[in-house]
């Protein structure tokens, strides 16, 4: 009797394994990867290389690219690191749209041809790798750190606590989710025509610090963005907000910052500042 039960259990297990294997088999498919190739140091021309890559339902475009790089052509240049949309390294144009390769599943893409190109508005270093120097220069020009005269980081006895209410944090929280992947910068038509325009990322970061009540350099930040090639050259295409993989709305940040510049914004920043100062005294 026990032997009969064992046979039945074993048969059921075998059937389950077979079913599982057939599911796996059906989830496997082959995609055609078209990868932009260019090496400006050797040749100024560019071309696309095609690779047939096996993928699973859960494969990302980065997985497909790494398969191509690992097994088909080791010379493909890709920049990547975390594989979980945190580092912002693997930004590229996938089927015409700036996206993170690690955050784009192959199954999301219509058809089985995946075209990978470097991000527009970034000079190509090689293949899919762009030069982020200008991008980071614009970012650092916004002084992306807290300025506070009351904060003494040298004298320990004068250390001040920066107290914020949840409402104060809400003013800038979404803008602090930026991972500096450059997708918004690459999607911005104003950046494409005006190289001195800081771009949505830098402007949204400027707003992030203007809206932060711990920061007291509002005026100097507004002066940084208030020039001929500054914030006013945004024509509100809104593509920056569409492509952001972290749900940041840089277009909103730019409009709010403009509000501060033309004095249309509410006086909430000053109120918040005085509230923090009073809290510090007590």
């Amino acid at each position, binding site marked *: 009797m026990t032997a009969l039960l064992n046979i039945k259990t074993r048969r059921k297990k075998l059937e389950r394994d077979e079913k599982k294997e057939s599911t796996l088999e059906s989830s496997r498919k082959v995609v055609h990867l078209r990868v932009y190739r260019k090496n400006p140091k050797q040749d100024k021309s560019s071309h696309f290389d095609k690779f047939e890559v096996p993928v699973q339902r859960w494969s990302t475009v980065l997985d497909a690219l790494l398969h191509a790089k690992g097994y088909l052509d080791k010379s493909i240049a890709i920049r990547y690191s975390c594989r979980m949309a945190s580092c912002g390294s693997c930004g590229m144009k996938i089927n015409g749209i700036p996206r993170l390769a690690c955050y784009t599943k192959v199954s999301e893409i219509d058809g089985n041809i995946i075209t990978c190109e470097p991000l527009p508005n970034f000079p190509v270093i090689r293949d899919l790798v762009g030069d982020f120097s200008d991008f980071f220069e614009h970012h650092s020009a916004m002084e992306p750190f807290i300025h506070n005269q009351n904060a003494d980081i040298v004298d320990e006895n004068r250390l001040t606590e920066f107290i914020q209410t949840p409402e104060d944090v809400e003013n800038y929280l979404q803008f602090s989710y930026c991972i500096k992947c450059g997708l918004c910068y690459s999607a911005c038509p*104003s950046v494409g*025509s*005006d*190289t*001195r325009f800081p771009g949505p990322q830098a402007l949204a970061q400027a707003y992030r610090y203007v809206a932060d009540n711990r920061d007291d350099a509002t005026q100097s930040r*507004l002066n940084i963005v*208030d*020039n*001929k*090639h*500054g914030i*006013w*050259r945004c024509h509100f295409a809104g593509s920056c907000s569409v492509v952001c993989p972290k749900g940041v709305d840089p277009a909103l940040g730019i409009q709010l910052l403009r509000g501060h*510049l*033309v004095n249309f914004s509410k006086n909430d920043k000053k109120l918040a500042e005085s509230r923090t100062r009073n809290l510090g005294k007590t």
Partner: protein
Amino acid sequence: MILKESQIMKIHYITGIAALFVVAVHIIMRLVMPFSMSLEYENVIANYQNIAYAVLLESILVLIAIHGFNGLRIILIEFRQNIAWENGVTVFTLVAMIALIAYGTRTIIVANGLG
């Protein structure tokens, strides 16, 4: 006096909104009589000779010239990024704007019969 870009843009927005209003009044005024009749020579001159209407036309001229030429300046300075080009564009649009306003004002004054 050099205006900051935010001050220029504030003027740009205000002139844009004001121009919408005065142009709307201008178009509505065309409808007080059949449209083709409103464009007959005598009626047009009669409009110019009405002081309130002449002031309306002058304000349309000034508002649209400021808004339009600043818009042109914005488009042109995005083409190239160098100081000489930017200054050239600013001077060109400023001179063109003043010339257009002066010529238009002269036309309004002459048609009004004051000139």
